């Protein structure tokens, strides 16, 4: 071997040995490919409300501060410093200088002011904007030159700084409007219903420790593929580079075939839960409404379900019994004192007896002599939920309850739980990506649209709901983290006792990543794989063309 070749080999070997360093393997023309499961409903970052659009916003949007998905701490991005006032209703940012949008338009405080005013425009109906909407009045912005901005909101907002993680800054001057971006990529091509092509933003401001401009990967090809099995097939063929939120079956399949590709990032933010319809005007017989309104009945159901079995059988051990509306993945806000309901059918029957139910010949009767039977709706096509429902059916048979499982397509299910209220119980996973409990105000306030077991109450229907209202408002009105935590812990305990939601399991964050993709550190928060997209790089590709 010639001396020059030997030196080249040694250099390549050295670069490969450096963990996390792109070295000479970050190829020009490299392309990351993955699937999203629905069409992004919007490319306007202010209107993002679905996972697919959030993916595009995360990859293209430049934000003032970013929540580091690994440390769960805020880190500077377009803002190099920020400070909130004591009242919690104002924040000032010092902005990074010499930053340009993807089309070359300079970035300044005027862009931040423009973005905030558009975000808070009531006519926009921006979900991100609604997170900032507390109290009546106008938002006020004051610029201090090109690189300073002060933003004052009408009322205090708990966790105000963290909300800016979702605010992608728009350009006030660019003729390309929201298509001019400050993030690592920009949308180069969008074939509706088929794919999106993102290309590297040549004006992206971030550089690595060696001074090289980020991101390393040249382009991202995002296919819209609803079918998870086909996504898996394509991953195995090397046509895509990773799968987020992998199912337990596919995880185990890959564990046997390609163990180097799988990662279990621990418990995720996702919870699977059951709730009973407690809406007073629901088209249900009164005796069933009475069952569902009883905390003892709900607790008995909760105690009758073997959560550990659900985690073991349905999720192949990649899940853990759930206890609260806040996942253990949310390190600060989770109440670690809570324990999951134990599987104890004797205790469940004692609770039911106290409510006038009786078990005769393996069948449970209420105090009027009616057999206890109800239906559980869930979304069709979700095999994990269908299996969970089947196991819950078996568990409830152990206390003499007959459960009928009804699977519906998602829009039909949604219609039942939000409009017609023609359902008895529902099994669903309500995803919560925000760490701050304020993001769930609409779920816990009894007047909330998403207080899903009994929404839009004029006055709280029960004393415990009134108490939750008080505590949630209290935590939202104070800026002291300790006081907020105490109030949120108390809400978690009330919810555990009253069981309006019966939490079943928290799934693990399972991902599959091609061995060609480097510097990947999967996390429990979304996005699980590409949260550090700028730092990812591709090795020599083994991908076959489609």
């Amino acid at each position: 071997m010639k001396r020059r070749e030997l030196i080249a080999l040694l250099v390549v070997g050295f670069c490969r040995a450096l963990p996390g360093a792109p070295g000479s393997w970050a190829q020009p023309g490299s392309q990351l490919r993955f699937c999203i499961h629905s069409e992004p409903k919007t490319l306007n970052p202010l209107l993002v409300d679905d996972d697919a659009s959030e993916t595009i916003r995360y990859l293209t949007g430049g934000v003032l501060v970013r929540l580091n998905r690994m440390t769960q701490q805020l880190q500077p991005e377009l803002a190099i410093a920020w400070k909130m006032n004591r009242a919690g209703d104002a924040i000032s940012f010092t902005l990074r200088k010499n930053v340009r949008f993807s089309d070359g338009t300079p970035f300044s405080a005027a862009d931040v002011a423009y973005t905030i005013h558009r975000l808070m425009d009531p006519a926009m109906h921006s979900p991100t904007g609604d997170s900032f909407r507390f109290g009546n009045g106008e938002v006020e912005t004051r610029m201090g030159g090109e690189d300073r901005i002060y933003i004052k909101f009408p009322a205090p907002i708990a966790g105000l700084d963290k909300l800016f993680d979702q605010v992608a800054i728009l350009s006030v001057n660019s003729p390309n409007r929201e298509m001019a971006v400050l993030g690592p990529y920009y949308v180069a091509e969008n074939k509706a219903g088929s794919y999106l092509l993102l290309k590297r933003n040549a004006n992206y401001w971030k550089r690595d420790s060696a001074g090289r401009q980020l991101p390393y990967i040249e382009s991202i090809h995002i296919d819209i593929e609803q079918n998870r099995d086909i996504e898996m097939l394509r991953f195995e063929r090397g046509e895509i580079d990773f799968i987020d939120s992998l199912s337990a079956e596919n995880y185990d399949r890959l564990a046997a075939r390609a163990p180097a590709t799988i990662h279990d990032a621990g418990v995720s933010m996702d919870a699977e839960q059951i709730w009973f319809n407690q809406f007073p005007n629901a088209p249900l017989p009164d005796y069933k409404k009475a069952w569902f309104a009883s905390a003892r009945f709900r607790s008995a159901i909760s105690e009758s379900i073997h959560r550990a079995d659900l985690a073991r059988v349905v999720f192949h051990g990649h899940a853990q019994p759930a206890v609260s509306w806040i996942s253990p993945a949310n390190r600060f806000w989770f109440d670690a004192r809570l324990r999951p309901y134990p599987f104890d059918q004797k205790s469940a029957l004692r609770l039911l007896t106290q409510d006038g139910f009786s078990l005769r010949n393996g069948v449970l009767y209420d105090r009027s002599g009616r057999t206890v039977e109800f239906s559980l709706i869930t979304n069709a096509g979700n095999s994990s939920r269908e299996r969970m429902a089947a196991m819950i059916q078996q568990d409830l048979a152990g206390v003499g309850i007959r459960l009928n499982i009804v699977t519906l397509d998602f829009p039909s299910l949604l219609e039942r739980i939000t409009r017609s209220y023609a359902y008895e119980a529902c099994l669903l996973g309500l995803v919560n990506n925000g760490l701050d409990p304020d993001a769930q105000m609409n779920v816990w306030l009894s007047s909330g649209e998403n207080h899903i077991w009994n929404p839009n109450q004029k006055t709280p229907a029960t004393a415990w709901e009134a108490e939750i209202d008080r505590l949630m408002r209290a935590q939202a009105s104070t800026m002291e983290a300790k006081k907020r935590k105490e109030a949120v812990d108390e809400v978690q305990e009330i919810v555990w006792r009253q069981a309006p939601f019966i939490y079943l399991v928290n799934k693990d964050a399972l991902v599959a990543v091609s061995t060609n993709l480097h510097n990947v550190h999967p996390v429990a928060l979304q996005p699980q794989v590409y949260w550090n997209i700028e730092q990812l790089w591709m090795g020599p590709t083994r991908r076959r063309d489609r």
Partner: protein
Amino acid sequence: MRTPGRFWLRALARHTARMLLVLMLGGFLGATLARMAPGFGQDAEELDSRLSRESVAALRQARGEDESLPGFYVHFLGRMVRGDLGQSQTLQEPVRQLLAERFPETLESVGLGLALGWAAGLGLAIAAVMWRSAWADLTAGLAASVLLCVPAAVLALLFVIIQAPGRLVIGLIVFPKIFQFARNLLLRAASLPHVLTARAKGLGGLRVLIRHILPVAGPQLLALAGVSVSLALAAAIPVEVLCDLPGIGQLAWKAAMGRDLALLVDLTMIVTLITLVANTGAELLARRPREGGA
């Protein structure tokens, strides 16, 4: 006595009027079904706990829930007259643009599928009838029976797994129907007395086929051609969805899943129009010799 020109004019006018009526009816029924389907106007976004009550209301309004069905249809027709096919709610693009992007893909898939299905189906039917080959008849019959039993989606999935071109699936869906119908038609025509006489007189197989069998079976084969277009279009939906071919079939699936009223109605009308044109064309061609010669 009617001239061929007058015959064509009258037939075209009659069929065009009928097509327009069926088209309107198809569109209205499509809109009615989509509007009445459970879950119409629902969006998972409503479960977003960040949304204010006003935003949820705005979201519902944007989904067109408040608009009555006749109201929708009047607006829809008004727009259509101006050449505006509306906006897809799920894909957030003008329907006209979506159709322009995706129509060539489906045209290619369906065209290839039809060509393949007809070539194989008619070819094997002719072989089975003309050469009275028991082997060809049995093999093709068995293949046709098996393919008739397998749903298009299963075939498409199989092609995805073996990494074969998905477009061929449409051919496999069309083939058994063509083979079975064509074989029966040709058999019946081949057993007619004048065909037997021609054979007895020593006419060659090809001449018998072209001059005596096909003219008899021709009108029904043309009708079958019209039907096969609808068959191929129907097969295009699962095939394009599973094989990830960005055509009209995939668009129809997405529209149905998203309860996308404007897109669904447009697609219903387009598929109805294609089917009607194919069937009408076949019918006119088949009737021409009889009526034209009257």
